[in-house]
């Protein structure tokens, strides 16, 4: 069961990847779906046993490397933290596999797609069940690879290739920090096994490295690594571009699972972050800033998937600042509920795109809600959950985050609280802007497209309905376990809160206006969206003209891409051109080419000696003889 949950996806990937050519596309698809279903069953059983039954366990597999003082083994660490992820990843991945059967039905190479998708799932599971940092890093890089392959899945599109490379390269920046953090952990603790590290934290808490507290430095480095994967401010630029991949990919990787790996990492390393208050404060600050920043951009984007992508970025910010105030459980809870409703939103968006003949621009949609009622309904549910409207999943987790930020009573906590409130308002606004522009109003698509608008097949709708159910109920069901009164018996030490950290307790005792505020804010955001896009449809246009500067600032995503292009890409390209033109073409190639030319010249010279005249030959012999005699005499 424990092993099966992890390795069934690998089996599926292997079969559809390597044998897909022989067994045919349909067989490959259904084999990988079956493997995922089995994995999901194992995952849910494991969840029942480990999280609810309370049997934390480690399943050793094999020794990976044993070099000097470094010993690393492959092992599956099953505690509540990892099993929550395992269950969630396998469950959602199964639904997305199923959805893909319908979505990719017109694709040329579905077997390849399913192989990548299953491979990604396997890597993600390796990441979350890692028993040491090396294995975690293996999964970390593995999901990066799978993400690269999937974003660039349509490799004949230039934009997809660029996006894939961008995602990979930006992630590398984070990975470097992760590796440095990993090395520092090994330097300080002499081990990278979680068990050993966590047990040794008290001895090493005050260790210094280069004049800085080692724990703070480790915290910073690991968090910077997490920033890459979780698209936090600064390293977020790849996420919106990653929407070039097929929509199920966006749903699985860039909403539900991979991007949350950073949050998972911070929670997994909670014992270290608990003794690194400065690093934790930084986590909080950056998370809050990202939450607000991404929400502002989301308000003006016009691509349906990009709006949801920025929304993801923003929600990840929420998770980080929850972790940053010490409420890791709350972060994990939001991660969990978010996975459901964000996957739902992406898949629903995919369904819309499917219906609109691959149109993604919301300015060319509208007036289709009657034609695709189920998609429309689940879109509403997803948005309600996202906006944190009461009794939907997001309400429980997002409110808890904002309460925790308030209850932290620290400087960054208050900053995070304000950002969170503001972002919640914007979230509600852009969600309904999206719904209203997409589904309502006059049809803005051309006649031909409108005729073809149709509801998706059932193989796509069933996952949508399951996820919609999840988006409604997971909050209410799991809130007591994750963050409520059963919290202690649920986590059982998988997440560590320091002795001074009472935020989980304090968040239940905030003034009564705090829990109500997000709801009011959310509803007013919805109201504003209705005002602007239903009652006074000319308002957005006038606003855009009136506030021309700010509007373009947001539309161009705070000019981050342009800035990076100027600072990093162009100088790197210039340097690369110099190295290529002179370094490689002239010097490196010059050596072998020159040697070859020299050899050819020597060859011509040597052949030239061969005149064909016997007299010359005899002369050469005599000269040679003289040389040899001379040599002999001088040595003697």
């Amino acid at each position: 069961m424990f092993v099966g949950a992890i390795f069934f996806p690998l089996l599926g990937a292997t079969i559809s990847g390597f044998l897909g050519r022989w067994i045919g596309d349909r067989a490959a698809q259904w084999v990988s779906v079956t493997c995922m279903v089995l994995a999901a069953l194992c995952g849910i059983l494991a969840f029942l046993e480990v999280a609810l039954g309370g049997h934390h366990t480690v399943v050793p597999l094999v020794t990976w490397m044993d070099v000097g003082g470094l010993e690393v083994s492959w092992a599956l660490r099953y505690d509540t933290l990892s099993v929550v992820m395992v269950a969630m990843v396998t469950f959602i991945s199964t639904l997305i596999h199923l959805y893909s059967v319908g979505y990719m039905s017109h694709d040329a190479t579905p077997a390849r797609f399913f192989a990548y998708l299953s491979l990604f799932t396997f890597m993600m599971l390796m990441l979350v069940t890692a028993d040491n940092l090396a294995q975690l890093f293996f999964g970390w890089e593995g999901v990066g690879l799978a993400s690269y392959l999937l974003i660039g899945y349509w490799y004949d599109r230039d934009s997809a290739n660029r996006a894939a490379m961008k995602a990979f390269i930006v992630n590398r920046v984070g990975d470097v920090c992760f590796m440095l953090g990993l090395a520092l952990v090994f330097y300080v603790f002499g081990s990278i096994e979680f068990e050993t590290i966590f047990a040794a934290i008290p001895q090493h808490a005050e260790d210094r490295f280069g004049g800085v507290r080692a724990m703070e430095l480790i915290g910073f480095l690991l968090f910077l690594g997490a920033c890459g994967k979780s698209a936090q401010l600064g390293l977020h630029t790849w996420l919106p571009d990653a929407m070039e991949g097929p929509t199920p990919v966006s749903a699985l990787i860039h909403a539900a699972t991979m991007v949350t790996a950073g949050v998972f990492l911070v929670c997994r390393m909670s014992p270290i972050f608990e003794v690194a208050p400065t690093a934790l404060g930084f986590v909080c600050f950056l998370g809050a800033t990202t939450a607000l920043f991404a929400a502002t951009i989301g308000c003006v984007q016009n691509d349906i998937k990009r709006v949801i992508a920025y929304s993801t970025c923003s929600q990840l910010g929420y998770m980080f600042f929850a972790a940053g105030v010490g409420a890791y459980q709350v972060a994990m809870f939001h991660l969990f509920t978010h996975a459901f409703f964000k996957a739902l939103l992406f898949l629903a968006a995919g369904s819309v795109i499917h219906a609109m003949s691959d149109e993604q621009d919301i300015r060319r949609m509208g007036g289709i809600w009657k034609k695709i009622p189920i998609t429309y309904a689940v879109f509403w549910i997803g948005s309600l959950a996202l906006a944190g409207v009461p009794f939907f999943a997001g309400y429980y987790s997002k409110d808890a985050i904002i309460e925790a930020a308030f209850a932290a009573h620290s400087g960054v906590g208050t900053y995070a609280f304000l950002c969170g409130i503001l972002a919640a308002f914007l979230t509600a606004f852009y969600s309904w802007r999206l719904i209203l522009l997409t589904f309502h109003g006059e049809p803005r698509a051309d006649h031909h497209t409108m005729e073809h608008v149709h509801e998706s097949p059932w193989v796509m709708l069933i996952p949508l309905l399951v996820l919609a159910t999840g988006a409604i109920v997971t909050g209410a069901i799991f809130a007591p376990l994750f963050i409520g009164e059963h919290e202690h018996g649920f986590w059982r030490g998988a997440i560590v809160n320091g002795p001074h950290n009472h935020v989980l307790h304090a968040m239940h005792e905030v003034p009564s206006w705090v829990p109500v505020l997000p709801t009011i804010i959310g509803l007013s955001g919805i109201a504003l969206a209705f005002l602007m896009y239903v009652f006074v449809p000319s308002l957005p246009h006038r606003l855009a003209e009136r506030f021309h500067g700010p509007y373009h600032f947001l539309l161009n995503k705070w000019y981050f891409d342009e800035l990076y292009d100027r600072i990093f890409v162009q100088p790197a390209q210039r340097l690369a051109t110099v190295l290529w033109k002179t370094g490689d073409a002239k010097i490196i190639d010059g050596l072998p080419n020159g040697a070859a030319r020299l050899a050819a010249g020597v060859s011509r010279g040597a052949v030239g000696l061969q005149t064909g005249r016997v007299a010359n030959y005899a002369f050469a012999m005599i000269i040679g003889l003289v040389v040899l005699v001379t040599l002999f005499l001088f040595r003697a």
Partner: protein
Amino acid sequence: MNWTLALPELVLAIGTLLILVAGVLPKRETYFPVCMASIGALLLTAVLVLAQGEGSAFGGQYIADGFSRFMKVLALLAAAVGLLLALDFNEKERIGRFEYPVLLLLASLGMLVMISANDLLVLYMGIELLSLPLYVIAAFDRDNGRSAEAGLKYFVLGALASGLMLYGSSLVYGFAGATGFDQIAAAFNHQHGVSAGVVVGVVFVIAGLAFKVSAVPFHMWTPDVYEGAPTPVTAFFSAAPKVAALALLARVLYDPFGDLAPQWQQVIILMSLLSMVLGAFAAIGQQNIKRLMAYSSIGHVGYALMGLAVADTAGLRGLLIYMAIYVAMNLGAFAVLIAMRRQGKAVETVADLAGLGRTDPMRAAWMSIFMFSMAGIPPLAGFFGKLYVFLAAVQGGLWLLAVVGVLASVVSAYYYLRIVKVMYFDEAAGRLDDAPASLGVVMAAAGIFTLAFALWPAPLVAAAQSAAMALLGG
């Protein structure tokens, strides 16, 4: 007088005369049976050599030991295979006359005498007995201008080399007072320092032998003669006489002049360096494949001389192993070249091999094996040949030789691999005729040896080891 010790030579000499008579008497063409009888005589001699005792005869002028046994067997086998290669070719070229095998037998007799020589005069006699038939068979296709030219060039330059060697011998005799190797060694043993006359004499003798193995700078005849002579003659030239001459060179240098080793080492090192470098570079531009093989053989002699230059048992063992492997892969490669005919007409440029990989995959595969082996690519035999001499050179402190050897083999890899590339990747220039059975057998035997040496190197290495010990008395 213990003349029975020289039984192999006596049997071969008498057999040659009998075969000559048997070839002359009948009215009809006797080429094929004479060839078969000659091969039989060579093999019989080889068996007798294996059964030969050890010792010296004819007043110490003739010596038989482990070293001579190894070299004689190698030379006889090379000669027999060389004759086998000519079997089909000569008939197709209308030069299938019975004198050819008889001349080869006489040359082989000369080789045996050389290898067993323990006296400067016997040495000279052996060399002349080898050379005179070679001059004739180089020009054996006498109606062909190029073949005649090759024979004549070889003769003129060979006469010069013989003269040099005879002059050197007389100088040595003048200073040592004897021509026997044992007496010469004894004479130089008691002298402190060597006079210039002896030095000149030794160098002249070395030059005469270096001419036979075509070491630079006495190689000038090689490309012209290799190209002009009929291909089976070229094959023969490149194998058996080189074995005999190297054996003689080793014996002369180690036996009578062993005490002068520090001096003559320099000469051998220089010749080895020049041969390796010239063999590598000059072959690059060659279009005629026989000319290419000429330079290739010059390069290989350079590697063999490297083993000689080390002047110890390991070096000599390396030399012996190298020669054995070289003879095998060289004859194999020549079997492929001799089989190169298009519509009955012999062709001999590299471009004619184009597309052989498709038209005759088996032959192309054998050729690739020989070429890879000559380039020294593991796990083929050629790699081990180079390995043993390089090891000896490095252990003997001759770093320069080893480094230049490795670099030269990199350069030479170019033209060996070019042949492989032409066979497999170039557009076919037209189908080559099928190879006759005799050549197929040689290709397969040499190919299997080249492939399998890595698996069972022990017999050859052990034989070479004991031969080297016999000469150096280690």
